[in-house]
């Protein structure tokens, strides 16, 4: 006996959205609380510290700016991949989804260089509270980027099998993956100024 989740492709008559989308938004709400707790900790630690360094004194702002632009671009390619599959253009969808995955990797590679330089200068999460917050917030965000890449890779290759069986459901899945990817972008938009620029 299989437990069938209903309304994953068609909108539920009561809510007007698919259960897949509703579930994704509930998940994103829990993610807001996860990052919210850490931001709250950051505010508490920073306001109660006798002195706190400016992010730009210790961190690589040009690299983080580059990463911001990379992530924004990847959000655009994600939207374009969804728009392509919505009109049934699979090759174009693959191109844009592939670009999104590639840009996600670029973000992580840049992040690796940034972390590498920090470790080289013996700056670790245990060094002080600033680096503890920096590594925790950017590290958790980096893990989210990695998670997004894995999901997008699945929808780029094996996941497309569903498109031939049920194009509507597949398009919905890509939309949900997009919501997650844009959320990761959104978190970075707040992380970047609060950690690096203030």
């Amino acid at each position: 006996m299989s437990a069938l989740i209903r309304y994953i492709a068609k909108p539920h008559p009561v809510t007007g959205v698919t259960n897949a989308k509703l579930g994704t938004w509930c998940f994103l709400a829990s993610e807001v609380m996860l990052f919210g707790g850490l931001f709250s900790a950051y505010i508490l630690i920073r306001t109660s510290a006798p002195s706190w360094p400016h992010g730009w004194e210790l961190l690589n702002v040009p690299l983080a700016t580059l990463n911001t632009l990379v992530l924004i671009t990847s959000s655009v390619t994600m939207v374009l991949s969804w728009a392509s599959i919505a009109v049934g253009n699979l090759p174009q969808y693959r191109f844009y989804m592939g670009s999104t995955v590639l840009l996600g990797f670029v973000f992580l590679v840049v992040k690796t260089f940034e972390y590498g330089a920090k470790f080289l200068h013996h700056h670790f999460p245990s060094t002080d509270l600033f680096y503890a917050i920096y590594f925790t917030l950017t590290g958790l965000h980096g893990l989210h980027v990695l998670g997004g890449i894995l999901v997008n890779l699945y929808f780029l290759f094996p996941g497309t099998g569903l498109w031939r069986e049920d194009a509507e459901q597949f398009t919905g899945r890509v939309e949900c993956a997009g919501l997650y990817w844009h959320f990761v972008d959104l978190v970075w938009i707040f992380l970047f100024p609060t950690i690096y620029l203030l």
Partner: protein
Amino acid sequence: MVFAALAALTVVTVTVSYLHLPFRKAMAVALAIAGVKGSLVAGFFMHLISEKQVIFAILAFTGIFFLVLLMLPVISV
């Protein structure tokens, strides 16, 4: 168009940070720009500008609890 706005605002926020404004002013500017950028992403990329009411209901609760979380340091001092 949205991409151009997001890229331009990124350049603006970085440029402003090089002015080394007093902390409160710098924070206000940085958060205001991040707020506009975040709204653009949520509004257009996550298409919240044309979303069903149930999603806004979830987001309203999320917003309330998120504010409580952010206020915890203020309340507990």
